[in-house]
Structure formats: structure tokens, C-alpha cells
């Protein structure tokens, strides 16, 4: 199955990258953008028997840095579509 891991900075952690993107959007003339937070998307193709607990463990041990980041696991395809 295909799993998407959405990684974002925790609320309250300053995001210099997001701020730079916001300024760039303003520079392009886009108004009304109040805040920008940049994150990361990691897509995994895993066997169907990989458990939720194992996915959680992957996030905590490597994919996200729990000091500054949150993660959200989303299963986008139950079967491989190869």
C-alpha cells in the first residue's frame, strides 16, 4: 500500500523558510497570505502487513524530529497500483 507521511513544524516553532516563501508571495503581488508553514511529504510504498505501530515507529525514530516536528500518517492506497 501507499502511505503518505506529512511532516510539519510544531506550532510555535519559527519557520524561516515559510516566512521567506510568504515574503516571496507578497513580492509577486499575492495579497491576503497571512502565514506560510513549509513541511515535507514522504511517500512510502509498503507491504500490506506493515502495521500502524510500525509506521508510527518509523516516524518517531527517523522520519520526523519530535523536538520540532509533528507528523500525520495517511494511507492513500490500500493496494499497490503498479
Amino acid at each position, binding site marked *: 500500500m501507499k502511505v503518505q507521511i506529512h511532516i510539519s513544524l510544531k506550532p510555535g516553532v519559527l519557520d*524561516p523558510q515559510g516566512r521567506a516563501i510568504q515574503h516571496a508571495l507578497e513580492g509577486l503581488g499575492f495579497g491576503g497570505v497571512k502565514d506560510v508553514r513549509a513541511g515535507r511529504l514522504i511517500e512510502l510504498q509498503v507491504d500490506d502487513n506493515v502495521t500502524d505501530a510500525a509506521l508510527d515507529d518509523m516516524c518517531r525514530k*527517523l522520519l520526523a*524530529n519530535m*523536538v*520540532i516536528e509533528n507528523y500525520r500518517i495517511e494511507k492513500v492506497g490500500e493496494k499497490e497500483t503498479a
Partner: protein
Amino acid sequence: MAFRSAVITFPGSNCDRDMAVALEQVSGSAPVRVWHGDASLPDGLDFIALPGGFSYGDYLRSGAMAARSPIMQAVVAAAERGVPVLGVCNGFQVLTEAGLLPGALMRNAGQNFICRTVALTVENNQSLFTSGYEAGQTIHIPIAHHDGNFFADNETLRRLQGEGRIAFRYAESVNGSCDDIAGILNQAGNVLGMMPHPERMIEPAHGGTDGRGLFESAVRSALTTA
């Protein structure tokens, strides 16, 4: 008794040779060079250094992949036994990612890679790494990093401050680091992570020798406690 040190090289380390030269110049004995894929460290080490660079191309997060490499299990075990461990720049990032030091090193607040010599204040001169400095002394050490913006939650920052674990502070605002933190110690005081490069200020040709004190302190500590 000779000072036995090791310098770990990860794929993408680029300050490992500078670190080895500094250790040899100050201690008189050449460090053992250890590769990231090695499973164990030499016995009887007095000092382990994690050098600067861009291990694994900074993939995922700076230091994240290196922190999970085989040799780091041995480094963590050695640190827990009390062996002094110094992480400089990328080495500091690796130490936080490995959980040996708290906090995280994020992109510099100004987004830019910063490469220049900065003034640091020695906050704690009681550690094995800093005993050769005066408390409050200003030293000048180069930095060269993109991800040196130290972040930790307020409780961690209070603890670091309260326990005297802030070893160095930037004397000016440099990269957005919380409390201008440039280097921190673990609770036991045998692990130091810092973004500035003391190994680049060892001889007058470098423009100064302010980094020497750190290595001299560590060598003195090892030889007196042995």
C-alpha cells in the same frame, strides 16, 4: 601516557582532517580515524570527535542519517560510559539527532549560509572541554553553517541555563538561536556540541588560536583523570 582519540568520518564529512590535525597538534598523538560503517570503536578512548561537514548530503535533516549509522550506537554507548564526545557543526547536529544532546538545529533565521569568524562568550568554564578558558571570556571562532539555529522548548532552555549546560553563547545575534546558544553540554558534562569550529583556530596562521584552549582542556582532563 598518550592521549587516545578518535575522529569519526561520515560520507560527506569535510572537517574530519582539520579535527584530526588539531587533536594531533595539541595532544601529540594522532587520532584513530573511524568510518561511519564500523560497528565498534577502539578500546580505551579518551576522546571522540564528530566533525563538521554535510553527512549524507544533509538528506532528510542535517545529521539525521548519520545519527542512525552503525558507528553511532558505539558512540552513544561510549558517551553513556563517560567518554568525552565533541561534536562540531554537523557533529553537533548529529548529537542532537542521536539524542545525546537536547534541542534541534534548524535553518538559520536569515536563511543564509553564514561563514565568518564570530565572537563567543564562554559561559561555563567548569567543563572538561572549557576549563582552559576564563568564565565570561570572549573568544573568536569561525562558523560555517546553514542549519545552526538552535531550538529547544522553554523548559529545556531553562534547564540548560539552570544546570550550567550552556558552554558558549554568541556574543552577538548570529543565526536566530534561542538565547544565542552556540554550544551545549549534556547533563553529565562529557558531551559537548557546538556550531563554531574550534579546530579552525589552532595556530597563528589560522588568524588566531582561541580554539586551542578547548583541546588543551580535554587533553589535560584526560591525562589527569587517567
